[in-house]
C-alpha cells in the first residue's frame, strides 16, 4: 500500500512552463490587467520492451480521501471515464462512510472552563476497485490518475498480484513419499 499525499519533497520537478498573457488596451498607462497561469508539462517517457513476463493484478483498489465530497465526486467521474477509455474492468465504485474527528477545546485563554468550542475535521472517502489488469496498464493508469489528483485529496493504492503457484507445492508431498501407517496401540 503506497500512500500518496502532498508535501515539499526534495527532487527534480517535471519541466513546467509559465504562460503570461498581458492584454493592454492603452500600453502607456499603468493600470493594465494581466493574469498568470501555470502549465504543467511533462517529458514523455520512452517505451521499453522487456522479455520478462508482466505482473498480473487480480485487484487494484484506489481509495481517495478528501475534505470536500463534490471534489471526490468529480474525481470519481474522471477516474471511471479514464478507466473506460483504457478498457479496464471496474468491479466496484462505492463510498465508504465518512470519518469526523472532533476536538472540544477551551474557548478562553485563561479560565472559563464551562465555555468550550468544538471543531471538526471531516474526511470523505471514495473507493474504486479495478480487476484483472496487467502491470503495464496499472502503471500507466495510476500515473495518469495521480498526475491529475486535485489539491487537498490523498490517495491510497492497494494492489493484489497474482503469482504462479511454486512447483514444489503443486503436487501434495504424500504422493511421492508414502507414509507407512503403524496401528496405534
Amino acid at each position: 500500500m503506497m500512500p500518496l499525499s502532498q508535501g515539499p519533497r526534495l527532487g527534480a520537478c517535471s519541466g513546467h512552463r509559465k504562460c503570461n498573457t498581458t492584454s493592454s488596451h492603452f500600453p502607456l498607462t499603468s493600470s493594465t490587467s494581466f493574469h498568470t497561469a501555470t502549465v504543467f508539462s511533462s517529458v514523455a517517457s520512452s517505451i521499453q520492451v522487456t522479455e520478462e513476463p508482466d505482473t498480473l493484478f487480480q485487484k487494484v483498489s484506489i481509495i481517495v480521501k478528501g475534505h470536500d465530497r463534490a471534489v471526490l465526486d468529480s474525481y470519481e467521474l474522471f477516474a471511471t471515464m479514464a478507466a473506460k477509455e483504457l478498457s479496464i474492468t471496474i468491479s466496484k465504485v462505492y463510498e465508504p462512510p465518512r470519518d469526523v474527528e472532533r476536538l472540544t477545546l477551551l474557548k478562553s485563554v485563561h479560565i472559563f472552563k464551562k465555555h468550550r468550542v468544538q471543531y471538526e475535521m471531516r474526511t470523505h472517502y471514495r473507493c474504486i476497485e479495478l480487476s484483472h489488469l496487467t502491470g503495464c496498464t496499472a502503471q500507466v493508469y495510476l500515473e495518469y490518475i495521480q498526475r491529475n489528483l486535485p489539491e487537498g485529496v490523498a490517495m491510497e493504492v492497494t494492489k493484489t498480484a497474482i503469482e504462479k503457484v511454486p512447483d514444489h507445492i503443486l503436487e501434495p508431498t504424500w504422493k511421492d513419499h508414502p507414509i507407512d501407517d503403524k496401528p496405534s496401540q
Partner: protein
Amino acid sequence: MAVSLGSTGSVRLLSALARSGSLCSSPGVRGLHVTAVCCKNRAARTQVGKGDKPLTYEQALPPHYIGHRKGWLSQHTGNLKGEEGAAERTVEDTFIRRFMFGTFHGCLANEIVIKRRGNVLVVCALLLQKHSPQKFYFLIGYSESLLSYFYKCPVKLEIQTLQDKVVYKYI
C-alpha cells in the same frame, strides 16, 4: 466586561427567579440578564458597524460556513485522517501569507489561496492594479524564486488583477 455580581450560576438563579417572579407579578425582583465573557463566538467575524465598512465575501461570512458557503483558503492533505504533516503545512502557510502581504503591500484584494499539488506549491492571489505590470512581474518572479529556495520545492504564483476590491456588503 466580566459579571460584577459573581459567578454565572448565581446570575442564572437570579434571572430564573425574576422570570417566575414576573409570572406571579410580585414586586421587588427585577430580571438581570448578563452573559459571561466567553459565551459569544467572535472568531473571524467582523462586528456590525455603522454601514460604511466594505466587506469582501470572504470577510463577511463567519467560519461555520466553511464547506457550505465558503471554500478553503489552504488546501493540503495534512488534515485528512491518517495523514501527517498538518502542523508543518500550517506554519508554511502562515509564513507565505505574511510574505505575500509584505511583498505586495496594499495590492492584495482578497485572502491568498494556497494549494499543494504533488511537489508544487501554488499560491493564488488577486491583486489591485496599483503599479505597472513590469513592477508586478518583478515582484512575482522575486517571490517565486525566494519561496522556492526557501521551501525547496517549485513555487508558482497565479495572479489575477482587478481594478478595485469586490465588495459583498457594507457593515
